[in-house]
């Protein structure tokens, strides 16, 4: 069996240094991370981290609070930058909201159980 389409590309060719773009390997900087944290009892916290620059976290937080009917705050973290923190398990709602606002779904990472 000979598949003509695949002939032009040699899959076993050396790709060069696997760590070519070194700053990007293993880093997850381009992702939006949505996490959940357990508090006492049935209470939880949802955090949204890694928001792209073009979105204003304050306005987004306001929209979230209004839309999800929950409280929330903006936390300044020295490593992660500004993190939106919402009360309750809002993960799926955030994903839905953000995808409807035009953020591609494959840049959103949903963590937690």
């Amino acid at each position, binding site marked *: 069996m000979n598949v003509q389409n695949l002939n032009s590309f040699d899959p076993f060719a050396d790709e060069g240094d696997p760590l070519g773009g070194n700053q990007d390997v293993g880093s997850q900087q381009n992702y939006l991370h949505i996490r959940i*944290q357990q508090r006492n009892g049935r209470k939880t916290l949802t955090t949204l*981290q890694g928001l792209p620059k073009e979105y204003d976290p304050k306005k987004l937080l306001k929209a979230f609070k209004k839309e999800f009917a929950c409280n929330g705050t903006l936390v300044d973290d020295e490593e992660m930058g500004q993190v939106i*923190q919402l009360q309750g398990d809002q993960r799926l709602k955030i994903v839905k909201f953000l995808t409807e606002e035009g953020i591609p779904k494959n840049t959103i990472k949903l963590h937690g159980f």
Partner: protein
Amino acid sequence: MAAEQPLFDPSLKKRKKKAVAFTEDPLGPDADPTTPAPTTIENTTTNGDVVDLGPATAHEQMKRSLNGAPDSVDAVDEAKEDDDFKAMFPDGLKKKKKKKDIPMDLGEDGSGASAAAAVPAATEDLDFSDIKKKKKSTKKKAMEDFEKELNEAKAKDEAEEAEADDGEHLNELDEADLGDDPFARNEAPAGIDSGTEPWLGSDRDYTYPEACALALLTRFYASLHAANPSLLTSTGKRYTIAPPQILREGVRKSIFANVADICKRMHRQPEHVIQFLFAEMGTTGSVDGSGRLVIKGRFQPKQVENVLRRYIVEYVTCKTCKSPDTLLTKENRIFFMSCESCGSRRSVNAIKSGFQAQVGRRKATAQ
């Protein structure tokens, strides 16, 4: 469905199993010409029924189809299922017959006609492989259509039959679902490629383009298998992992009892797995004296299972060939995953716990 289930459910299942043996005799001559080679039967059957399970890679499908042929005798479960399916699909006769004679006590008259009608119904069934309900409705409709065509059996009889058929169908589906290890990866043999042969044998002219496409696919896979059988033997059987055992310790701690066992089955360091678990669940914990993992917070087995699933997808299965037979090595602070079966090698994301919100005890932090 729900309405009909209680009527047929318990007795039908049992009868079905028992009746498998003596299915073919009465209408044998009618049934035989349409029956294809054994390989394809198995395919058909599995295919037709397990549609609902998740998608499988072509590789798995192939493997399944190849396995099905020679192994049908030894694997008891499979054999049984296959019998059922055989009865169900390729010639429609057997199942119909069975149902008709034994459990239902309906009139014997319409059996021939309905049997003839069942074959096309089955084929249509294959085409609409989405949802049970949809399948049901379409199937029923199709049956009725053909019955109108045939003009032989009484309408009422047929409708009842259709319902009964659906009932059994669903039962089988349920069984299959239940029988599955919940924590097993879905390797559903959703072989769309298969199930064509029975129609090929029959002299009906089909207007469905799908039929042609499927026939071609079947031929493609058949020849592929013939050409390189090693494709199929290389992959292991389905990849299963024991479900996590979560116990509760006190109010706010959970114990993940069989973490060591699971790590061993995944061939991963427990430290790595535990690190991932903690990062994903946003908690902390420790390993106690007997190798169990104590997690802070309350977690259900289902939740831990979800996280483990994600771990397997990310760090265990090879992205190229889906094989779980991989090695994780660390070089220059970066983890690399190399596949044992296909030889591919790729770097995997480091585990990062990300932002941790301050939970509780704010006095201590405020100072």
